[in-house]
């Protein structure tokens, strides 16, 4: 029996709200736990046959805007007999109180215990959410190890980019989905619905088996990993009949048929992004060799200009947002980006609606685009990512942009009124030397000099932002060794000195960087195998939480856990990170099929070492990366030649239907 509460919303029968409410005044930012956002859906529990709890394993402020979760949430809730609710990582202050008062991990929509759901889907954009996954499972009252779970526990499904190598969390999740989720969640839902309708024959094991047989849901427990005496993997093989040798990624084709999110969530609390984001395409074939996202989301599938226009109109009207983000891996590459930006800018002229492109390639940017983006007066930040400091290293990573291009583009931005641009680079790339990194300073100096000359003003700045390179599965760099943190930190120090060597220029250049240490741990997690699960667990037991936050991340905790746990397996932290792999080594994710042909990846790795550049298959012939034939997909790009449909401007107050005046 639940206690009556002062909340104005109806309290669901299994809600933990009455117990939770009295804890909220004692924690920071309690509003993140109350739900009630515009766009949130609360359905009748008993009327649903399949129930999903969806999680972004980070704080609400980061997790709420996540597109992946919002899309799946909406797709699932559109089905009449399906219910989907959301949960996020709770901060340690609330975690402590929840443990003390026996309040389980809950959803924000109707505050129901996560353990009550049939499925618990967790979206991993980054590996740094793994410890938060363990917190959530444990707080939910679900056994940490998949092997210990019973029919009373939800099936835990991992998705998102990090799920392309779920081996480090293989002990903790029941299943993983590679690739696009729209159709995958529907297929999983259908399997669960049918199994429940039949009276749950065979229990949890049978359900997992049915999922595995689809060949697109990976169920780790049905695969055995054998190791060689030296610690490398000998082979990964199914241990059950009917379970496929390889599990394939999902690709949602025809994005116009999936125009989500239609009803974006509008938070009451502050979050990292408050904007209506539309993916204008998926996939990227630029072929940057470090970029896992580009490799695993092939081929390119554009959303048409007309669908984008319609989504923007409806999304803004529904949400009241005044910023539109045109998302993709390289937004300026859309075949109709010019018309799209000018059309949208025109439609929203004088309305304070602003446009932003999160990822702008240096070479595709041009004056028109810059002007369209600034048309409504507000200039959102501009970031360019040359990634490598020297021409040579840019050939290694296949980031085909010349220094002249970069300077020309940035000067264009300055002459169009931008006072500040951000340049993004990586440190620790394969074959990198101190000199490659020091060229970043020279480039930044030239940018400022050219900018000053072009604008006649000293009031221009650039920020150089450096991230650590992390080799990722399913990329040509999956075999590469990582550089040691000391080497990275030394290079970053040299770079700082070089930037400030000229005082006048140095003052106009901001410098932001990540230390080498967190990258090394990301490297452990991204290319780890099942043995790394024990490290994650140890770190979590020792208090590891929110590893994506520098104020919570502890390098020492990870090193200590690795030192305690890994020697028993005959390996260590270096073995996973700074060791270069050989061509024939069985990689932990070889049985997970991203469509990329391993031979092609190896060839691209060799091409990288010989500084050979690979073109883009959108504009040059197919170079046989393997994806399209393996996945039965094709490039879907425009131009469609269509224009944005003219909008009838909506003026005046929007009254609810039947409003009394």
């Amino acid at each position, binding site marked *: 029996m639940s206690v009556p509460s002062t*909340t104005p919303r109806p309290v669901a029968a299994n809600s933990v709200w009455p117990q939770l409410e009295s804890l909220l005044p004692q924690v920071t930012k309690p509003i993140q736990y109350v739900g009630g956002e515009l766009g949130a859906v609360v359905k009748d529990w008993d009327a649903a046959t399949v129930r999903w709890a969806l999680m972004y394993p980070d704080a609400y402020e980061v997790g709420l805007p996540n597109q992946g979760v919002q899309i799946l949430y909406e797709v699932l809730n559109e089905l009449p007999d399906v219910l989907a609710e959301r949960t996020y990582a709770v901060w340690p202050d609330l975690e402590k109180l929840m443990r003390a008062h026996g309040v389980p991990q809950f959803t924000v929509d109707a505050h129901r215990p996560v353990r009550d759901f049939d499925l618990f889907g967790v979206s991993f954009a980054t590996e740094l959410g793994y410890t938060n996954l363990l917190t959530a499972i444990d707080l939910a009252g679900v056994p940490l190890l998949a092997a210990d779970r019973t029919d009373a526990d939800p099936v835990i499904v991992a998705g998102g980019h990090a799920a392309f190598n779920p081996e480090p969390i293989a002990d903790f999740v029941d299943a993983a989905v590679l690739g696009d989720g729209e159709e995958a969640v529907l297929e999983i839902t259908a399997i669960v619905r049918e199994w429940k309708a039949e009276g749950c024959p065979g229990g949890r094991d049978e359900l997992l088996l049915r999922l595995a047989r689809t060949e697109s849901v990976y169920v780790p427990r049905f695969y055995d990993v054998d190791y060689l005496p030296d610690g490398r993997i000998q082979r990964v093989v199914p241990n059950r009949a009917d379970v496929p040798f390889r599990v394939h990624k999902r690709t949602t084709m025809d994005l116009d048929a999936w125009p989500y999110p239609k009803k974006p969530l509008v938070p009451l609390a502050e979050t990292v992004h408050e904007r209506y984001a539309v993916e204008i395409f998926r996939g990227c074939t630029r072929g940057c060799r470090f970029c896992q996202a580009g490799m695993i989301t092939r081929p390119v599938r554009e959303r048409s200009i007309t669908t984008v226009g319609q989504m923007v109109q409806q999304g803004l009207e529904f949400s009241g947002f005044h910023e539109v983000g045109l998302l993709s891996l390289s937004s300026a590459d859309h075949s109709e980006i010019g018309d799209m930006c000018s059309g949208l800018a025109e439609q929203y002229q004088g309305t304070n609606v602003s446009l932003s492109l999160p990822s702008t390639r240096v070479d595709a940017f041009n004056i028109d685009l810059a002007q369209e983006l600034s048309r409504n007066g507000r200039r959102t930040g501009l970031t360019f990512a040359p990634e490598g400091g020297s021409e040579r290293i840019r050939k290694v990573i296949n980031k085909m942009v010349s220094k002249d291009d970069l300077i020309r583009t940035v000067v264009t931005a300055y002459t169009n009124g931008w006072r500040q641009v951000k340049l993004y680079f990586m440190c620790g790339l394969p074959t990198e030397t101190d000199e490659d990194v020091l060229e970043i300073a020279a480039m930044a100096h030239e940018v400022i000099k050219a900018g000053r000359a072009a604008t006649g003003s000293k009031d221009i700045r650039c920020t150089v932002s450096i991230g650590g390179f992390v080799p990722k599965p399913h990329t040509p760099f999956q075999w590469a060794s990582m550089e040691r943190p000391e080497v990275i930190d030394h290079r970053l120090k040299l770079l700082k000195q070089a930037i400030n060597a000229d005082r006048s220029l140095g003052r106009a250049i901001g410098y932001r960087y990540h230390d080498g240490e967190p990258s090394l741990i990301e490297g452990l997690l991204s290319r780890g195998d099942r043995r790394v699960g024990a490290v994650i667990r140890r770190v979590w037991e020792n208090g590891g939480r929110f590893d994506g936050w520098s104020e919570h991340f502890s390098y020492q905790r990870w090193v200590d856990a690795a030192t305690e746990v890994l020697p028993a397996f005959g390996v260590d932290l270096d073995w996973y990170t700074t060791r270069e792999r050989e061509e024939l080594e069985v990689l932990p994710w070889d049985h997970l099929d991203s469509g990329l042909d391993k031979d092609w990846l190896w060839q691209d790795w060799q091409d990288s070492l010989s500084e050979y550049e690979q073109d883009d298959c959108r504009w040059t012939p197919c170079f046989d990366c393997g994806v399209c034939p393996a996945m039965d997909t094709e490039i879907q790009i425009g131009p469609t030649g269509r224009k944005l449909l003219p909008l009838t401007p909506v003026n005046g107050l929007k009254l609810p239907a039947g409003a009394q005046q």
Partner: protein
Amino acid sequence: MRRAGVPVAFSQGFTPHPKISYASAAPTGVASEAEYLEVGLREPVDPAALRAALDAALSPGLDVLDVVVASGGGLADRIEASHWRIELPEVDPAVLAAAVATFTAADEVMVERMTKQGRRTFDARGAVITIDVSGPPVTPSVAPAVPCAILELVVRQVTPSVRPDDVLSGLRVVAGLEPPVAPKVIRLAQGTLTAQGAIVDPLDADRDGATIGGR
């Protein structure tokens, strides 16, 4: 505002801001039945239609009760005092009454709170106009078996503002009152203060004008 299609006026300048100002907003985690805000518009709109549109655009539980045309003078100047009700579950009303008596008898009760400017010490007694222990509420929000003391509080708007939690700190300072469960605070009214200590709806002044206009 945007969802309701309100023609909000914007400030001039490089980053224009919508002209919306809140008068003495309730602190986080505190319920309220009486919040006020002022909005500058680009063009006149019908107040009743504006109320309906805003109310429809907001989440359930955030209700817009009334909209009037400002007849001059800032809203902030009309917020002189605030009426709070504090429910203290598991506190014996007699104990609370004794604590209140000690508090009232004092000339000054210094309390501490973290503000944006850092830790500050200030008097929580001076601003308190009335502080009464009342009987059980008409609609108790906790199960009747649990004893519950209720505090009715009228506090003058001062700087730094004295909030309900400051008065509770004051009760702890003077009488060692430590509520075992987090108190539930709700603002019932705020507005101008009459000589008798009653709170008058700050929109009343504008409402008179609106009546003449034939609303």
